[in-house]
């Protein structure tokens, strides 16, 4: 296993900059998730590491070796594809053994290694079947087996779970995490599913428009989103983002949606940059950090109940604030009756404020 380093890597396709000056290090044995919406450059970054694309500028290292311009087969990486890329005309034995075959591993050794890996991945009985004869989950394991059968320097996963249904996906996720831990592999893992990234990764790299928006551990990214993009992308339901502006004279934030004033209170001391009167800011607060009440308060804004969604252990309430919907998460199985007009009280200690450029200022 080896670490992977990207230095200032840029890749453009025509007029589109798919990867924009990305620098990143994946430590030995670490699983880093590349997370972002489609088109954010995460897959291209992965393909750059694999050697399926050659960067316009910047350098890529696997271990101590610079691989920036090397063809894929000289990089010694393994990859699991979104569609698994299992060859329909080969049975699983041949599919999983293919990386060994092209490396000239003798037939007998190849069989043994494939059988060994397949047993570990619980597909040992299926080796004489073709991909079309096994289930989606088994196909997924087979494609993982093919990746781990030869001990590569690093593993690359391109949305390996996105073709599975929800239940299988949870199983496969646990399985992958277990595998990663026991094998201790270095891995880059592309996904657009933030829950998957949170669950699997040692660290998450959030990307947008080819740029890295934030790198951090899952908890860190969740707790301290550095900008409105990350804030909106991480969490389910996502963080509420309320546009507002600063009224220095009154010492309040005015929520744009319904002009409700909000005492800065505790927030004021945590602001790290100088602000001017009338600055447009964004207030960020997670749904679980809002409480609902019938009475106004200093850190409360008025709203109207839009809909309530009981989810079992918790209830999701959508509240209309002006023309904006705010999600509120209440951890109770049965919601007490609420008046139509409610007040939302924000937990200011867990509220974020983002500047005009979207960067966090609180």
């Amino acid at each position: 296993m080896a670490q992977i380093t990207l230095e200032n890597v840029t890749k453009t396709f025509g007029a589109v900059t798919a990867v924009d000056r990305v620098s990143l290090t994946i430590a030995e044995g670490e699983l880093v998730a590349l997370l972002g919406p489609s088109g954010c450059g995460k897959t291209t970054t992965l393909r750059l590491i694999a050697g399926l694309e050659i960067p316009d500028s910047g350098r890529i290292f696997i271990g101590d070796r610079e691989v920036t311009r090397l063809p894929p087969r000289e990089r010694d990486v393994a990859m699991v594809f979104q569609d698994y890329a299992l060859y329909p005309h080969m049975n699983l034995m041949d599919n999983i053994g293919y990386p060994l075959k092209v490396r000239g591993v003798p037939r007998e050794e190849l069989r043994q290694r494939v059988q060994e890996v397949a047993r570990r991945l619980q597909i040992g009985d299926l080796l004489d079947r073709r991909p079309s004869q096994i289930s989606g989950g088994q196909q997924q394991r087979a494609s993982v087996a093919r990746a781990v059968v030869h001990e590569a320097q690093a593993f690359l996963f391109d949305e390996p779970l996105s073709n599975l249904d929800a239940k299988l996906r949870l199983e496969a996720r646990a399985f992958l995490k277990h595998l990663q831990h026991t094998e201790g592999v270095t891995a880059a893992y592309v996904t657009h599913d933030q829950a998957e990234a949170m669950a699997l990764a040692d660290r998450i790299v959030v990307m947008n428009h080819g740029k890295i928006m934030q790198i951090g551990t899952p908890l860190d990214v969740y707790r301290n989103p550095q900008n409105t993009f990350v804030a909106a992308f991480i969490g389910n339901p996502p963080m509420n983002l309320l546009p507002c502006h600063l009224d220095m004279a009154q010492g309040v934030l005015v929520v744009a949606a319904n002009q409700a004033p909000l005492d800065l209170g505790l927030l004021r001391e945590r602001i790290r940059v100088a602000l001017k009167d009338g600055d447009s800011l964004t207030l960020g607060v997670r749904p679980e950090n809002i409480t609902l009440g019938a009475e106004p308060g200093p850190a409360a804004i008025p709203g109207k109940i839009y809909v309530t969604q009981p989810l079992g252990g918790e209830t999701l309430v959508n509240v209309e604030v002006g023309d904006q919907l705010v999600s509120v998460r209440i951890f109770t199985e049965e919601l007490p009756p609420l008046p139509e007009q409610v007040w939302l009280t924000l937990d200011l200690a867990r509220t974020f404020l983002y500047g005009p450029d979207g960067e966090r200022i609180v």
Partner: protein
Amino acid sequence: MNRYESPLARVGIVLFTMLAASFFALPLLWLATAPFDARVNLTVHIPAELTLDNFRAVFQNSFAVRALLVNNLIIAGGAMLTVATVATLASYGLSRTRIPGRDILVYVLILFSSVVGGTAAMVPLFLLAYHLGLVDTHIGVILVMSGGLLPSAIFIMRDFVDTIPRSYEEAALVFGASPLHIFRDIAFPLVRPGVAVVAIWAFVNAWGAFLIPVVLLRSPHNMPASVALYSFYSEAGTPVHTLVAAYAFLYTIPVLVLYLIVNWRFGFRFFGGIKR
């Protein structure tokens, strides 16, 4: 598939099938009956006197038998192998490499092939073959025919190649396969139905070829069946219908059999992907 279908629709499709089948079958009726008929003119009728004499007579013409069983197989088989191999390689290369204007390129090649395949090209092709020492050789006929068949073959083939998911090859690349490995282990097995279509197409074209063999070949023992058919003419140069029919029948069997085998084995179909 058990879809609901109204009885009217079912009757309709049967009628339609009969109509379509007759359209394609009726012109061939003569070919099916005449060879077994002792007395043939151009009429289709159930032979009053069923006979295999016509075939017996045909098999006595060693020139025509050799043409069919040896020369035609060499020429059509050779053109088939050449076209299928070269077109598969080329369409794969075209599909997987960025070459500016490649779509237009294929069309322009097809246009060239339509000129060069025509009679106007016979003199250049003969002189070319002559200077290459290919006159009166099967190789010459195979090469010249293949040149003319290639562009359309590449066109047909590309659609098959384009349907292979790129991730298949990318996976192989990452796992350490060389381009040749990838072609041999992955691309070729996957486009086999396409190779089959192109192979049949090339075989059929070369099997029926007349003008190019006549221009390039000289010895009777090299001539294909299309030329040998003319040996079943009378002293005065008019067709002897009994023998022509029997020979035409034998001449048709191989392409039919080849088609049936390929259709059964690979499914003779185009990919719906033909899109450019």
